[in-house]
Structures are given as C-alpha cells and as structure tokens.
C-alpha cells in the first residue's frame, strides 16, 4: 500500500514539475492573476478614483468570488489544453515503454498523472486565493470595506474545486476513449461551449459541472443563500470524477500486471457509477417531486379560491426567533370576523409549508380541530360556527422554518404555465424570503403568519382580496439583533442575551412583514413621519460627510415627502417610513415579468445591499466637486454634498437602474395609494404605480435640479426619443417596434403574464402609465391628486376597480368619457402623429410690442383617440399646449409667443411614432398689425391621393445586404446601408433614413411601387441635409436610375437643400403593369442618403 502511494506521488510530482515547466501553465496562471487584479485591484483603484464601480464588487465577499467565477470559465479551456497531454506526453518523448515497464500499476500511473494535473492547478488556485486575500486586505485598508475571505474560500470549495476535479477527469476519459488528442480536445471544448451557450442550468443542473449557472450569489447578509441542493450537485460531479478516472485506467493501453488490480478498478468504477447514479437520480427526483408537490398544492389551493373567508381584524403575535431547533416559534391571537351572510363552520388560512401548526384554541381555551395540508390550514368549527357579523378570537401556535422557494405558487422557477421566476448565476430570484438564526427577511407573501384564504391559484384578473388588519408583535431574539415591522419598535432587554421587541401596527395594513438582523439604525423625525434607516455596519460608510449640510439634506428629504404627498393627494399614512437593507436576491426577484411586482412590506422599503455598498459617499463628493469645478458650476461643499445626498436618497426612493428600471419596487409612493386600497385591476394597479413614480421623478428633478437637461416624459417617451435603434429602444429586452405591432394585435387588457410572458410587462409599462399621465394632464395634476384623495376617502381598505377610479376622476372633471379605459386599455388602437404645419408671423399688437403668432397643425393619422402635448421652443422659453385629436383628425393650434419661435415638437403620451416629432418654424418677415390669437380648431386634411410615397421604412424599399453582414447585428449595420433616425428624415411616424458611405455602386438602394394608372408621373427624391456634419460629409453627386415605360434613365443630382426636402427628378411615363422602380447607386465620394421617393400623377 505505501508503495502504491509512493508511486502515485512520484508520478504526480513529476507531472507537476513538467506542468510548471510548460508555457501553457503560465498562460493559465497569468490569466488567473489578471482576473484577480482586475476584480480586486482594479476595482479598488476604481473605487478610489470614484468611478461607478458596480456595487457587486464592493460587497465583502463578492469581488474575489466573482474573480474566481470568471476565472472558472478561462480555467477550463486551459485545463483542456493541459490535460489532453495525459496519454501522449510520454509517447512524444519516447518514454512510454520505459514507464510502462515499471512495477507500478496502471491505476497508480493514471491516478498519479491525474493527481499531478489536479494539484498543479490547485496550487495555482491557492496562490490566486492568497493574492485575492491580499487584494481584499488592501481594499480593507484603503477603502474600508470589510475583510472577509471566507466567501471565496467557500466558493472555491463548493464550485471551483469539484469542477477542476471533474473537468480534468473528463478530459482524461475522453483522451482514453477516442485516443486522438485533437478529437478529445474538441469534444471537451464543445461540451463546455454547449454548456455555456445553451445548456446552462437545464437538466436539473446535472450538466453544469462548474455550477456556472446555478443560483449562487454571495450576500454579506446571508452568505451564499440556499446552497443545500447545490451541494448534492457538486457531490454528483465528484463521484462522476472517480467513475471517469476508473474508466481512463481501464481504457489505458497497457498490459495490466494483475487481475486483482483490474478487478479492483472495476469495483470502484461500478461502485461510484452507482453512487453517482443514485445522487443524480435523487437530485432529479427531489426537484421533480418538489415541483409536483407545489403544482399539486396549487391545484389544491385553486379549489378553495371562492370559499367564503373570515377577516382577521387584528393579530397579536408572540414570536421567538433564532432558536436552533425551530427558527420561528409563534403564538398568535387573531381577532376574526365573519362578514359573510352565512355562518362559517370552517376557517381557511394559508401558512408557509415549512411552518407546522401545533395547536389551535378559541379565546376560551377550547381547542379547535385543524388539518394542515402544505400551505393550507383548515380550522374545523363544526360544533360552534362563526356566525355572520360575529367576531371571535382564535389562537394558533406554530413553529418551524420558512420554505423560501416554494411560496408564491403562481410564480415558480421554470415552470410552464406559471409566471416565470427563473434563477441565474448571479441571482436567486426564487429566494424571496430568508430565515436563519441571526437574520430574517419575511415579506408578507412568504406566509410567515396565517392569512385567510388560499394564497395561490386566483385568476389573474381577480386577485385574492386583501386582508387589512392591525397588529401587535412581541419578538424575542438575540439582543444584538433589531426587529423591523410595520409599526414603531421598542426593545426591552431580557436575561441571557435576549431582548423583546414590541411593535404596534396601528394603521391597518395589507400584509405584515418581519425583518431581523444585526442592523445599525439612523433615524430622523420629519414633520409627520419618522424616517428610519436600518443598514449593515460596513455598508453605509462615511455618511458623516453630510454632517455639515445636515439641515439642507433633511430639508431635501422633507421636500421629497411633500412632493409625494402633493402627487398622491394624501399624507403618508403610517407612523414611520423604514428603509431596511436586504440581500440582493430579495430585490432582484421582483424584476421579472411579475404581476404584483413587489414583496409586500407596507411602510418598509427594502434597499438592497449592493446599492448601499456601492455608495462611496466621500469619493462621490470629491468627484462631484471636481466635475462641478471643471464645468464652472457651483463647487461649494454645501451645494455638492447636497446634490450627492439627494442622489443617494433618490437611488433608494426612485431607483432607476438596469435591474429596477421602473423603480417601483422601492418607491415609497406605493404606501400612499396602493397599500391602502385593494386594487383589483392589475393593469390599473401597475399603471398607477408607474405613473405616480414617473411623476414624482419628474417633479423631484424639476425641484432639485431645475437647470438639468429635461428629463424624459415617460418610459414610452424615452424609448421613442432614442436614436439608436439597437441599444436602448427596448423595454425588458423588447424592441419598440415589436411592442407597437404587438399592441396593434392584442389590447392591453387581454394580455396576461402567463401567456405573454415578458411582453405583458413590457406592454403594460409602455402603454399604461402614459395613458394615466394623459388623463392627469387632461384634468390637471391638481385635480388628479384630488381624485386620488377622493378615491382613498371613499374606498380606503376596500377593493376598487377601474370604474371606481374613473368615477373619482369624473367627479372633478365631467368631460372624461366613461369609456376612457375601454378606449385605451381594451382596444388595440395606436395613434400616430405628424406635424403638418409650423409657421409664424410677426404681429404688432399696438402695445409697443412685437409678438410671434404661431400656427401649427398636428395630424393624428390613425384610428383611435389621441392626445398630445405640443411644445414650442423659443430662444428663452417653452410654450406648452395639450391637444386632443380624434381618429384621423387634424387640428390647427394658434398661439402667440414673445420671442422668436424655433421649433415645435409633439410629445405624444402614447403613439406609434419613433424618433422625435419636431418641425422647424418658418417665420414670415412681414409685420402685420392685429391682435394675438390663442385657439385651436379642427381642419380637414387634404391628402393627395394621386401621389405615392415610398419611405425607407416602407415595404417597397430594399437595400442589399453584403454577405458578412448577416452575422452582425443589427442586420442593417455592416458594410452597407444602415439606419439612422433623424428629425430631418422623411417619415410618417418613424423618422428614419438609410445612409451609406460612398462605394463603387455595388450596393444600390431601391424603391419600388406599383402606380395605380398609366400616365406621366412627376418624381421627387427626398433629401434634407440639415446638420453641418452632413453638409461636410455628404457625397457631391448622387446617381439615380429611374425605370419608366421608355427605359431606364440615369440621373445625376447634386444634393442640396430644397424648401421642403423634395428634389425634383423629372417627369416619366409609367405603366401600371410594370413596377415603378428607382435605384440610388451607392457610388459617391461621401455619404449617400436614401430616404423617400414620391411619384405624383400628372396626366
């Protein structure tokens, strides 16, 4: 036996030595060093410089973990390169015969080689870990983020180490099997590529050897989250490693020295193959059966959705948190009320599946029979039913853990027919609750306390009625932990390191949540509201930079709260507003195309640790000071710090980043209206939430940064205005064009998250908030706020639908049609706007003042009601007019402005337009003497039916695609024509043009149409060279070929600005049988522009 070991170690040591002397290995090593340097040192430097380093890199554990994560990708490629040598190395140096005549067994030999490769790579990884620890330490010293190397050691042990073991074994096996090194290498590489690009975490993760796509992410608050199931998957790969190595030994072409050793290898092979089979099978079975249980549970719950329910009016909790044997022990006294007509002889509650009910009593101590099935608890009152309008008290005692994944059965990870909630490598959206000995995030949805009725299975359009209740909570936990819930908390120490926190929830809430953690607390009393901020020690560094501007900062927050109140029409409804730091996962979860996209925590805003940790306040102040100085702005500390502070607060209140692009998750605005109503219509709920959010965003920016660039009007507006079709004109990954065409097929209210997936969410966010904004604009924002107040006065704690909402709107302004929502939400119409006229005349009003009388016309060229905001820019000011436009209606709007008008622009609330709708105002020089008018009226549009225009966005327009372009995205990029949006372009609703650098005429653009009748047509070519850049860079000559009944005519034109952009090409005879074709050659010495061609019938 010791000999065996000696041989293995000798071979391994030799293999290692050879590795260390090979260039491949050092390439691998330097890659590793690069990743460490990049993720730790560069990020540290980045943080010091104050550049926006992603918050992920500033958490304690994640930077190094991320370095290893990414290094894992590279590492495997090099492992493949290194390990394929395993059989051929000795042959290459003509040593195999010597080696094979040595007394060690083949098993010794192969294992030794394997161990050699593994250890050399392992040592490299250990070296990198030390480097990472040093990096982390430097980070700790320099920027003060915590020092903790445990996360990446853990990550290494869980993810990296098994994947090294497995991958090397796999390559060994492949080499043994196919014998041709190159093929083995290709096989291994294609497996890895397949995994990265296609397989991901499919097949229960049993192909994801590196756990690249498993849902692990390290949080400073809860560590790696739920990795229990992952450990099994890792074990599976380790077992498989032994199988592969045994196979490599058996396939090794060498005469074995004894039957015994061969048999032993077989035995090991069989043993481990069985073991890995069992583990693999149990992983599959476990997740299958879990899913089945959940699906079955959902089916079960669905049966109970129309069951008459009791209402709980008050909860009185006694909670013990953090005991090892059961993390949550609860005794709750519930005041239940029967608001139904009939007596209730059974009460139905839902409770998280891992909490088990121990005892149920009536107020008089009489015990109640109960049954608990997964998430449902039935209380049998058979002998003593709860009579109509009777109120009783029931005590339930329950204890256990929280099933963090399995609640919210309407949205489970990767299950067909349910709302998607898929996990990923960075995120664990399936974990939307957490409970451990020293931490808890328990949103109401997780069912940590009994709530009447089944939680899941309600039809999308009639969500479960909310139960509004008050509560008292007494929570006993370790005294170093703070407890957060809806009311004001008061802690009293107990013996043995425990403390009891009492929380009274005085205003009724839709749901109760519980957050427990070792938090620090910042607190301030504003006029009506206390603002409490619970955060982790290392995550809110140097906030004391604001000390000297504290008053200004607090005043700013005060002002924000006032703005919220103004917008919503009601004051903040609770005693305090809490910000509490939670793990990233809890926040990311909500961002998929969900219905009720928030974890319910009335009065509590969850701030994720990443956004907290990335707020390097001192360096932000420094950086902003520099920037202000560079721009010649006010760089006084007071001003700069105030701005930094406001930005930070906005980041928590109204975040606007890639994950939470709408920001509604954290928005305190939900507390004002949503949490006090039970809004039944999901479209309305979402629309209202986003509209209020956008309005708040706008007003806050107007208040605090009046001189900043105009912030966009709505998500819709933002998308419309972006020039680059590829990058930004998408919402949840869906392009504006797909949204428009999708919404023309199906009205908003017919979309569901189940059937339309992410499109549902994108469509709602795209259309619904602007529609409400439009409504608010029509009745004025003040009236709108009043309407909201009336709504709350009338319906507080009750269910409302869109008719109730509209009724409240109509109480302030009568002329809102009752079918307003039917028009906008239930019909698939989409207005499209054009400015058909923009002129101005100087007038002398006789009061020593010259005014400009502007006349402009806007056309809604489509079916469906329209409403736009017209903006006229003068040198000094903006003049706004709201214009309502019916189907196919054109209106003239006249108003006078004191300064020279520049452009008029139409801001549609919601339209099919893309790009800016803007027109230059042409001014006549004559001064006429008359009074100014301010009016608008409908004009009848004169459309010339005998002219045909083919725009570059229309069907008849073609540009050739050069072959290599197919692989580039978007397809319009590449060597030939690409698209451009420009307000100077011709367009109906999409103001785009095609342009190309002058070439040799190989890629002509082509317009084609069919003329309605034979005859002579006047042809015009649209080109407008507005900007100076175009003037300089446009080709001096355009070559155009017109095909007519008399043949093809070449035309050469020198592009120049015409009054209206149309450039005459001449008169041609066309036949209705033949297609009318115009070709624009790409020959030229500058850019060629292809936009639109017009055929006008002459005779």
């Amino acid at each position, binding site marked *: 036996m010791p*000999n065996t070991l*000696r041989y293995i170690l*000798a*071979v391994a040591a030799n293999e290692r*030595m050879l590795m260390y002397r*090979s260039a491949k290995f050092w390439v691998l090593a330097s890659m590793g060093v690069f990743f460490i340097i990049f993720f730790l040192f560069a990020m540290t430097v980045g943080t010091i410089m104050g550049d926006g380093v992603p918050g992920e890199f500033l958490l304690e554990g994640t930077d190094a973990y991320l370095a290893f994560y990414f290094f894992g990708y590279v590492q495997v490629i090099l492992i493949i390169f290194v390990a394929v040598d395993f059989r051929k190395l000795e042959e290459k140096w*003509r*040593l195999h*015969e010597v080696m094979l*005549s040595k007394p060690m067994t083949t098993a010794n030999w192969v294992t030794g080689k394997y161990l050699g490769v593994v250890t050399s790579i392992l040592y490299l990884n250990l070296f990198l870990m030390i480097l990472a620890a040093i990096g982390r330490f430097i980070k700790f010293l320099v920027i003060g983020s915590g020092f903790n190397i445990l996360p990446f050691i853990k990550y290494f042990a869980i993810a990296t180490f098994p994947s090294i073991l497995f991958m090397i074994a796999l390559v060994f096996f492949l080499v043994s099997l196919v014998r041709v090194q190159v093929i083995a290498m290709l096989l291994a590489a294609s497996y890895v590529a397949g995994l990265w690009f296609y397989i991901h975490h499919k097949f229960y993760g049993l192909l994801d050897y590196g756990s690249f796509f498993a849902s692990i992410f390290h949080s400073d608050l809860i560590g790696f989250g739920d990795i229990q199931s992952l450990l099994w998957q890792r074990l599976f790969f380790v077992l498989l490693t032994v199988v592969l190595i045994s196979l490599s030994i058996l396939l090794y072409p060498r005469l074995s020295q004894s039957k015994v050793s061969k048999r032993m290898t077989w035995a090991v092979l069989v043993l481990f193959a069985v073991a890995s089979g069992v583990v693999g099978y149990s992983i599959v079975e476990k997740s299958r059966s879990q899913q089945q249980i959940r699906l079955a549970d959902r089916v079960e719950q669905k049966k109970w959705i129309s069951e008459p329910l009791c209402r709980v009016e008050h909860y009185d909790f006694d909670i013990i948190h953090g005991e090892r044997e059961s993390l949550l022990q609860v005794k709750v006294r519930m005041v239940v009320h029967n608001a139904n007509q009939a007596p209730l002889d059974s009460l139905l509650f839902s409770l998280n599946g891992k909490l088990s009910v121990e005892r149920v009593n009536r107020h008089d101590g009489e015990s109640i029979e109960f049954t608990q099935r997964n998430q449902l608890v039935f209380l049998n009152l058979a002998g003593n039913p709860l009579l109509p309008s009777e109120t009783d008290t029931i005590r339930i005692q329950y204890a256990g853990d929280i099933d963090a994944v399995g609640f919210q059965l309407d949205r489970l990870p990767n299950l067909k027919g349910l709302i998607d909630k898929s996990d990923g490598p960075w995120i664990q959206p399936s974990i939307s609750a957490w409970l451990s000995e020293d931490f808890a995030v328990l949103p109401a949805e997780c069912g940590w306390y009994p709530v009447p009725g089944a939680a899941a299975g309600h039809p999308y359009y009639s969500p479960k009625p909310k139960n509004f209740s008050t509560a008292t909570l007494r929570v006993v936990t370790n005294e170093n932990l703070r407890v957060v819930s809806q009311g004001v908390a008061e802690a009293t120490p107990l013996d043995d390191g425990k403390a009891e926190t009492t929380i009274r929830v005085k205003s009724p809430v839709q749901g109760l949540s519980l957050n427990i953690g070792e938090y620090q607390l910042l607190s301030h009393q504003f006029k009506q509201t206390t603002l409490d901020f619970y955060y982790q020690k290392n995550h809110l560094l140097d906030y004391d930079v604001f000390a000297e501007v504290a008053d200004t900062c607090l005043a700013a927050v005060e002002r924000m709260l006032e703005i919220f109140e103004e917008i919503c029409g009601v004051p903040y409804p609770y005693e305090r507003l809490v910000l509490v730091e939670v793990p990233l996962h809890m926040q990311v979860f909500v961002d998929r195309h969900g219905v009720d996209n928030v974890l319910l925590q009335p009065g509590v805003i969850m701030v994720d640790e990443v956004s907290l940790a990335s707020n390097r306040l001192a360096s932000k102040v420094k950086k902003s000071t520099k920037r202000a100085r560079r721009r010649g702005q006010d760089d006084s500390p007071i001003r700069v710090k105030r701005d930094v502070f406001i930005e930070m607060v906005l980041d928590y209140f109204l975040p606007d980043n890639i994950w939470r692009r709408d920001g509604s998750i954290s928005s305190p605005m939900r507390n004002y209206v949503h949490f006090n109503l039970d809004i039944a219509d999901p479209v309305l709920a979402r629309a209202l939430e986003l509209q209020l959010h956008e309005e708040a965003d706008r007003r806050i920016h107007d208040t605090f940064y009046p001189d900043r660039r105009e912030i966009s009007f709505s998500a819709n507006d933002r998308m419309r205005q972006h020039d680059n079709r590829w990058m930004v004109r998408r919402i949840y990954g869906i392009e504006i064009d797909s949204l428009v065409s999708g919404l023309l097929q199906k009205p908003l209210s017919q979309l569901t998250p189940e059937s339309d997936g992410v499109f549902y969410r994108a469509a709602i966010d795209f259309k619904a908030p602007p529609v409400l904004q439009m409504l608010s604009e029509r009745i004025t924002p003040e009236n709108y706020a009043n309407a909201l107040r009336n709504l709350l006065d009338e319906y507080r704690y009750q269910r409302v639908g869109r008719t109730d909402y509209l009724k409240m709107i109509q109480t302030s302004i009568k002329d809102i049609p009752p079918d307003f929502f039917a028009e906008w939400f239930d019909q698939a119409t989409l207005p499209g706007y054009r400015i058909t006229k923009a002129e101005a005349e100087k007038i002398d009003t006789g009061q020593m003042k010259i005014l400009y009388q502007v006349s402009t016309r806007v056309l809604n060229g489509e079916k469906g009601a329209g409403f736009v905001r017209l903006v006229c820019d003068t040198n000094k000011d903006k003049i706004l007019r709201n214009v309502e436009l019916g189907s196919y209606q054109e209106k003239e709007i006249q108003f006078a402005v004191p300064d020279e008008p520049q452009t008029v622009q139409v801001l549609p609330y919601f339209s099919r337009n893309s790009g800016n709708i803007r027109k230059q105002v042409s001014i006549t020089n004559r001064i006429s003497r008359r009074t100014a008018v301010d009016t608008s009226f409908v004009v009848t549009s004169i459309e010339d039916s005998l002219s045909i225009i083919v725009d570059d966005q229309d069907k008849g327009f073609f540009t050739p695609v050069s072959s290599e372009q197919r692989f580039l995205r978007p397809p319009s990029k590449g060597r030939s024509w690409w698209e451009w949006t420009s307000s100077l372009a011709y367009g109906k609703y999409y103001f785009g043009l095609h342009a190309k650098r002058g070439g040799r005429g190989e890629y002509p653009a082509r317009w084609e149409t069919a003329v309605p009748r034979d005859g002579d047509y006047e042809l015009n070519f649209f080109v407008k060279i507005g900007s100076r850049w175009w003037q300089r860079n446009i080709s001096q000559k355009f070559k155009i070929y017109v095909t007519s009944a008399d043949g093809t005519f070449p035309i050469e034109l020198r592009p120049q600005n015409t009054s209206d952009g149309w450039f005459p090409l001449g008169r041609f005879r066309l036949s209705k049988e033949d297609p009318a074709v115009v070709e624009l050659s790409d020959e030229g010495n500058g850019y060629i522009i292809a936009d639109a061609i017009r055929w006008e019938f002459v005779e």
Partner: protein
Amino acid sequence: MQITIRNLNKVYSGDVYALRDVSLDISEGMFGLLGPNGAGKTTLMKILATLEQPTSGEVLVDGENISVRRREVRSTLGYLPQFFGAYPQMTGSEFLRYIGRLCGFSGKALKESVEENLIRVGLFEVRDRKVKTYSGGMLRRLGVAQALVGNPKLLIIDEPTTGLDPEERIRFRNLLSVLSRDKVIILSTHIVGDISSTCENIALLSHGRLVFRGHPESLVDQASGKVWQAACDEEDFGMISEQMNVISTIPVEGRLLLRLVGEPVDGFEMQTVPPNLEDAYMHFMENVVGEHVEEEAGVMED
C-alpha cells in the same frame, strides 16, 4: 534467474509474423540477440519486458509465467527500448531520480543509486543540464543509466550501443560484463563485435525464427574453412562478389584485398583464414538461413 521461452509466436495485425515458434532458455550472464532488421529482436524483448502479449506460447521466469506475474517481472526489470527519449525540460539527474522512485527507491538509496549510475555511464558532469541539451550519445547513455537505476535482476537492452563513440562502446562493454555477474542481461545488436567479446550465449533470429542458439564459438566453428582471403584486380571484383559474400575490401597497391565467405571460385588464388564471429554470422545468415528462407517461401507459395 532462469528464463524459459516456449513456442513463442507473435503476430501483429496485418499478418505480420514477428516471432514464429521461438523456444529459448536464458540463464544468468550476458545473452546476445543477433539478427537482421525486422528479425523480431525488439518484439521478443518487448514481450520479455511485459510490454507486449505473445500471440501464443509462454515465457517463464524461474518457472512462473510472466503474463501472470507481470508485477514481479517489472519490479526486477531494467529496460532500455530501442528508441529512447526523456523529458527534454528535465535535467539528467531529475529524470533518473524520477525513474528511481518508480522503481521503489527513496531517500538515501535513491540518491546513491542515481549518482552511481550517472558515474557509470559518464554523465555525472552534466547531470544538472536539461536533457534537451544532451547529444545523441549522451541521451543513449542516460537510457542505459535509467535501465540500471532500479538495480534490476533482469536487464533488457535493445541496441544499447547505437550512437556511442568507440571509446564509450568499449567502456560500455566492460560495464556490462561486470554487471553480468549477478544478472541476466539480454541485449540485441547488429554489431557483432559488441557480442563477440562479452556474451557466453547468443541467439540468432531471422524472420521471426530462432535459427541459431549457442556459444558464439560454436557459430564460429561452423564457419571454419569457409572464410577466405584473396587479392584481385578491380575488373575481377564483380565476378567474385557474384559468387561469394564479400566481408571486407581493402585496396592495396592498385589491387583489392578481399575477405570472403563461401565456396571458393575457381581460377583465383585464395587462402583460408580463421573466421571471427562476424564472418561466422555472415556465413550463417547467407548459407544456412538463406536456404531455409527460400524453403519457407516455397512452402508458402504452394
């Protein structure tokens, strides 16, 4: 140690008969394998070194079948293959240390064995140089050293002297004869001279068949009276070489002095000379085996 080879056959894929019915006994001391290219020497040695499995027949070492007792054979074996290389990025002594470990040495014994053998093959001076800087002969010597490192009882060396300079070759011969006192050494070679002075026993292989086995002297005896010396003009050389095997040709004063094997050609003045092993080998391969092969070929044609 006693090695018994019985009715050994080895057929490679494609009907290549590398060994045909070879039976042989080998005991302590030096044993030389002679034979032309492709005779099957390497094949036989590979089978002995447990690298190949015979198609039929068996090899017994001290009465035990080696295909059953490969471990024992391997642990008493030193093998130098015909084509030998080493990891170029390692130094000579590193390489030997590695081989030593694989032979079960460690610690002081390992160190001593490595040094001893480095000295034996004259590589001690260059032991810390990378193998890739070694010359062909140095590499060959390293090969011999690695075969000796395990202090094997059975030493199988396939053409050990190719690429060695004459001085080294003599040293090597002496080394082998010292070692052969307590070992079985089987060496193959084309160079008859390597064997003549050292081997007690030799075997001649031709086309996979064992055609001679015995003391070199008995081979020499068979050739006595068949080796001639003659002087001739250049014009006559063609005629003589048609009928007799020319072993050597030395031009002397415008004429050629020839050493010949075979039946003398009439009309030339020839004297018999006492044969050496090389002459005997030549005589044997040409006359005894040549007929034999033709015979065989004839059989196969039928």
